[in-house]
């Protein structure tokens, strides 16, 4: 059994505890025995009484009383023993707690030895320096870049501006401003503006209408989706295309070539 590594050694402490517990068990057994005697004496007293021997019954009861006293005494002893056992067991727990604390303390010390305040400060300083250095480099580089590419950027900007003159995307505001005027200028129909524009042709666009702005320019309204006129204004605003009348450019559906 000793070969099995997981079983700890039996210490003198263990033996002492075991001894105490055995004593306790013996007391318990003794109590049981006394209880048996008590019951027996009670029976004896009863049978003597039944047979009319009162004095013998009294003697039996006296013996019983004596045994009862013994029982009480053993109870007190048992309490003592049990207290002792539980005190020892609790002390063992305390010892193991202390041991745990000690170990934890040592580990903490070990860690602190590696990580003293000075080294941490030094490390932080170094980090700070490195960061500053990095920032300087970044500044240098960005300055250079902006100088170098300023011209290119300006050129790109100009190009974009020139493109915007001849082509821009319809925004929501453009349409809401433009469409009603458009409708007013070409109003022919008897009722609302929504039906006044006449259907002109069915090209590759799903829906196409001839239109003229209030400034006199003619154009064709192209709708990517066939939808009621009044709803495109609200729903299809961003896809509404206006191109000059006569220019059926099929691939310009996202830009406006002319509008004044």
């Amino acid at each position, binding site marked *: 059994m000793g070969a099995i590594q997981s*079983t700890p050694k039996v210490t003198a402490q*263990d033996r002492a505890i*075991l001894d105490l517990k055995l004593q306790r*068990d013996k007391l318990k057994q003794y109590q049981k025995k006394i209880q048996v005697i008590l019951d027996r004496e009670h029976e004896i007293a009863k049978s003597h009484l039944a047979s009319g021997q009162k004095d013998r019954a009294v003697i039996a009861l006296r013996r019983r009383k004596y045994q009862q006293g013994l029982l009480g005494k053993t109870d007190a002893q048992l309490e003592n023993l049990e207290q002792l056992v539980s005190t020892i067991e609790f002390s063992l727990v305390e010892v193991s707690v202390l041991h745990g604390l000690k170990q934890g303390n040592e580990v903490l010390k070990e860690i602190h030895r590696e990580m003293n305040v000075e080294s941490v400060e030094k490390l932080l300083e170094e980090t700070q320096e490195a960061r500053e250095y990095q920032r300087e480099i970044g500044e240098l580089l960005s300055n250079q870049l902006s100088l170098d590419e300023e011209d290119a950027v300006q050129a790109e900007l100009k190009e974009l501006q020139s493109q915007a003159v001849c082509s821009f995307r319809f925004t929501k505001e453009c349409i809401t401003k433009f469409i009603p005027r458009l409708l007013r200028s070409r109003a022919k129909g008897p009722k609302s503006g929504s039906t006044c524009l006449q259907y002109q042709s069915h090209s590759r666009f799903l829906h196409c209408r001839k239109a003229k702005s209030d400034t006199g320019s003619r154009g064709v309204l192209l709708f990517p989706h066939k939808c009621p006129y009044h709803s495109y204004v609200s729903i299809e605003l961003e896809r509404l295309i206006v191109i000059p009348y006569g220019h059926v450019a099929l691939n310009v559906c996202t830009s406006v070539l002319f509008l004044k």
Partner: protein
Amino acid sequence: MSFTTHTTRSGFLLPSIHSVPPFFTEQPNPTTQSQNISQWTRLILAYARHRRLFVLRLEDAETSGGDWDEVLRNERINRRVLPSHLSAIMESMITNGQAVYEPPKQTRAVLLYWRLPEEWAEVLHSWATDTANLNTILTFYEITDPPVPSPLSDIPITLLRRVIAVLAKTGRAQVISTGRTGSGEENEGVRFFSGGK
């Protein structure tokens, strides 16, 4: 007469074969006899488990008034197991490892293994775990006679020793003796460990 099951006063349900008269007699035919003995073995172990009886003696068949009357006797059909028959049953149980002679070197009493020592070992270990008695020193008395009844209450010390030996083999128990003269129940205790399981 019809062969029916019967519930005894202790609440044990006797099988219908218990009301068949030939069941109580030794059979001359070896096949029938072995059949008969295996039925008896099953009945005895079941009853022992039911009543938590650990010991079966030849005496139980010889005289009435013992714990085994409900099984070894059937007054409804006026039959009882004869000691020689019971002896044969005991012998067969011992060869099958379902019992051992206790004390050894005699053939009049057996310790019944309605749980094998290996099974008892699991019961004992789980009891120790459940009652938080791991790593503490326990006396045998504490195990066999705990203040709160346990599955191990009243287990014979000899069986308990065997069970502890099983646990000790796997490193889950350790026997401690006080070191005083003699090594009996008076001087020994046991300590359980959580073990690998």
